């Protein structure tokens, strides 16, 4: 054992390695990405071979891991909550088939949401798919939980979901972990042919469903004694009434509750670490002698629903409060302050509201006296080639009736002023189908679908085939920066690199498009503005489905060659560059524009936009 300062996601990776994981597959997505990267970073310390891949999407990852688990290996899948939607088809059936080797699926939820499209709750998904789920409160607990999850997965022959949230994924903690010499060595028994076990048919499913329900009832009972579901504190009366109020909580919210409670006042508390199957026996014990329970949880009221069920089933007269009663916000992230306010409201704190900034005796309060602050949403980086691509299309289509269907990636940021080039964004790969749908209703609209290179492979290809075969009229713009930029530059099939460190034959996007049957596929550098504009004009005028691949490397990875500078004698301060491009490196100063040399990559787009030729010196990558 030794102590290390670890991010929650890296702790999960090390926990999986300590449990003898052999095959790891995932698709990047905040806040889950560092789990698989952690495995890749530490896998060579393992006593055996650990195979790791960024799959093209979560469905592929789930299937690869399932196959390896059929062959008896311990396997890990990593994705974010919306990634589980992509993988839900294999997962729903996999629960019926079961696994031989332990299989853990790390699904990172994102209350807020901070970096996601939805605030869906994987605990609810677990109940729907009947897959047991573990819900850690801290990085160090996640480290231990992932190891136990492999044991239970193997013991019961089911995949297990480990579901951390952003604050656990991206929280760091100094913690005790095993040395590589202490890591478990797992031996895969190999795949044993047995159609009655591995081939899903209705007659298998009838039996499997009954078995799952019976197993989960037994597992719920076993988990009632698990250290992950514990009760602490007394049934003492609460501070403001004679009612005996308890708290049921989970995940990061448990740490907020603990920090709020005074040493002198410890109401009875249930911490639920395995929300499905719900530890009913433990919950009944917790509810005995209470009048009321406040459920403090994020996302769905999962514990709240479960406790209401338990009260009904066991005829317990306990009022269950939380999101359904308006005591906890129904959406958004909990914070130490929001939890303190909720506990105080229920009379669970002897002190009044103290540190929420409402008191004038403590803390600097940001009130009416504070100056107006600028808003600072994320933006496309200085020199980002996506800016040039959007700008070229915007320029080429000026005055035309158009729709710009966007997608998931850095380029979603093309929605902001001044570009304003993302009219729709739904989910990975959806932009192509959305553009097709709009075309069928408004054939006179020039439809564009923008998709990044990684997203193209993840789920864009099926949309292109669908649009092409079904005779749509749209222009596909592939924004190819040769990486998965938003999540931290992971390789994908277009890059020619794998997570095992091999250099392999890349899959050609142009080749795929031509293979589908597209006859117009043009590859252009978007930073050559005039050429890019002419290409868009020409290609968009052609009938059917056609594509432009705007190819230019991500500036975060590239080293600038030469930066642009403004000649103050020539600059008249018209601010056209700032207003047209919104590049963070262009800074208005003293009536002119200055280029911040620490941000400029020398992309030259502003040089091409300046009507006075006042900017020069850059060199395209």
């Amino acid at each position, binding site marked *: 054992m030794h*102590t290390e*300062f670890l*991010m929650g996601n890296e702790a999960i990776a090390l926990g999986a390695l300590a449990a003898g994981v052999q095959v790891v597959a995932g698709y990047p997505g*905040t*806040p889950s990405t*560092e789990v698989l990267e952690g495995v890749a970073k530490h896998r060579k310390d393992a006593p055996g071979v650990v195979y790791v891949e960024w799959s093209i999407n979560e469905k592929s990852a789930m299937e690869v891991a399932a196959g390896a688990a059929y062959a008896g290996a311990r396997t890990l899948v990593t994705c974010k909550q919306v990634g589980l939607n992509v993988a839900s088809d294999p997962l729903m059936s996999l629960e019926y088939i079961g696994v031989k080797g332990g299989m853990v699926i790390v699904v990172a939820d994102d209350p807020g949401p*901070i*970096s996601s499209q939805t605030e869906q709750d994987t605990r609810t998904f677990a109940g729907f798919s009947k897959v047991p789920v573990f819900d850690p*409160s*801290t990085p160090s607990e996640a480290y231990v939980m992932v190891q136990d999850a492999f044991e239970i997965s193997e013991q019961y022959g089911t995949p297990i979901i480990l579901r951390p949230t952003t*604050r656990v994924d*991206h*929280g*760091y*903690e*100094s913690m005790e972990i095993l040395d590589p010499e202490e890591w478990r060595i797992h031996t895969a028994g190999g795949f044993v042919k047995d159609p009655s076990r591995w081939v899903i048919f209705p007659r298998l499913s009838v039996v499997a469903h009954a078995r799952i329900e019976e197993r989960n009832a037994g597992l719920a009972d076993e988990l009632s004694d698990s250290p992950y579901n514990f009760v602490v504190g007394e049934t003492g009366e609460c501070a403001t009434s004679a009612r005996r109020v308890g708290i049921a909580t989970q995940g*990061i919210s*448990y*740490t*907020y509750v603990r*920090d709020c409670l005074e040493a002198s006042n410890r109401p009875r508390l249930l911490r639920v670490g395995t929300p499905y199957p719900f530890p009913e026996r433990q919950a009944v014990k917790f509810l005995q002698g209470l009048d009321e329970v406040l459920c403090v949880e994020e996302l769905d009221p999962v514990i709240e629903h479960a406790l209401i069920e338990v009260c009904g089933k066991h005829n317990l007269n306990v009022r269950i409060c939380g999101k359904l009663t308006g005591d906890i916000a129904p959406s958004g992230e909990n*914070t*130490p*302050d929001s939890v*303190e306010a909720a506990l105080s409201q229920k009379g669970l704190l002897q002190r009044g509201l103290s*540190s*929420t*900034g409402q*008191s004038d*005796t*403590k*803390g*600097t*309060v*940001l009130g009416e*006296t*504070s*100056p*107006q*602050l*600028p*808003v*600072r949403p*994320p*933006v*496309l*980086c200085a020199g980002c080639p996506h800016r040039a691509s959007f700008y070229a299309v915007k320029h080429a289509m000026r005055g035309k009736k158009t729709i710009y269907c966007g997608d998931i990636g*850095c380029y979603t*940021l093309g929605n*902001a*002023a*001044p570009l304003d080039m993302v009219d729709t964004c739904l989910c990975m790969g959806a932009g192509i189908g959305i553009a097709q749908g709009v075309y069928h209703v408004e054939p006179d609209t020039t439809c564009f679908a923008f998709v990044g290179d990684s997203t193209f492979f993840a789920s864009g290809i099926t949309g292109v085939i669908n649009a092409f075969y079904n005779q749509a009229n749209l222009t596909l713009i592939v924004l190819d920066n040769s990486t998965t930029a*938003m999540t931290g530059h992971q390789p994908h099939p277009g890059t020619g690199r794998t997570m095992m460190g091999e250099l392999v034959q890349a899959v050609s996007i142009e080749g795929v498009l031509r293979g589908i049957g597209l006859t117009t596929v043009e590859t252009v550098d978007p930073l050559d503005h005039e050429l890019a504009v002419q290409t868009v004009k020409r290609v968009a005028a052609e009938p059917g489905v056609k594509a432009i691949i705007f190819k230019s490397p991500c500036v975060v990875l590239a080293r600038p060659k030469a930066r642009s500078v403004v000649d103050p004698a020539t600059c008249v301060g018209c*601010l056209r560059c*700032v207003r047209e491009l*919104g*590049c*963070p490196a262009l800074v*208005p100063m003293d009536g002119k524009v200055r280029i911040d040399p*620490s941000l400029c990559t020398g992309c030259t787009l502003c040089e091409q936009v300046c009507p006075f030729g006042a900017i020069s010196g850059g060199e395209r990558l």
Partner: protein
Amino acid sequence: MSARNGTNIILCGVGGQGTILASKLIADAAMERGMAVKTAETIGMAQRGGSVFSHVRLGQPSASPLMARASADLIIAFEPAEAVRQLPFLKQGGCVVVSTRPVVPVSAMTGGPAYDLDAILGHLRATVDNLVEVNADRAGEELGSAKCLNVVLLGAAARAGELGLSVEDLRTAIHQCLPEKLWELNERALAYAQ
């Protein structure tokens, strides 16, 4: 050096400025001193030029990596508007170490709320008793690099006595966390005082 038991620190700035590395250096130095450390980081979309913050809790009995409002002993701000944004987290009498160089967001030039640097600095000076201002432009010129603002700010915080760690502790952390070719510049940045 502060005698209190445990320190709550907020680092804040604009995505890409190096707040995460700064919080790693603090954590490493604190662990070397035997303190338990918890941090919460902003990782994700906001790293592309958005508002970012880290909560760093040293030697705390607290379970949560996030702190409540009015509980930070120290805010280390890489940007003045971001310092103001985090002020509700500052304890009465807490310290703010701030780089006074603004990073003006694109939104302020394209129709969003304007960036009023005088009002922002004025507010900080009026509301924070223990304010340490760092002129990042001058620091960059005198050190010959703009890339070590994070370590300049850490050095200023340590000298202000509010970090619960010494300059020497941070020097050790630099040696442990950074490649050797960056030691010389960052040690000069650590020692740099205006």
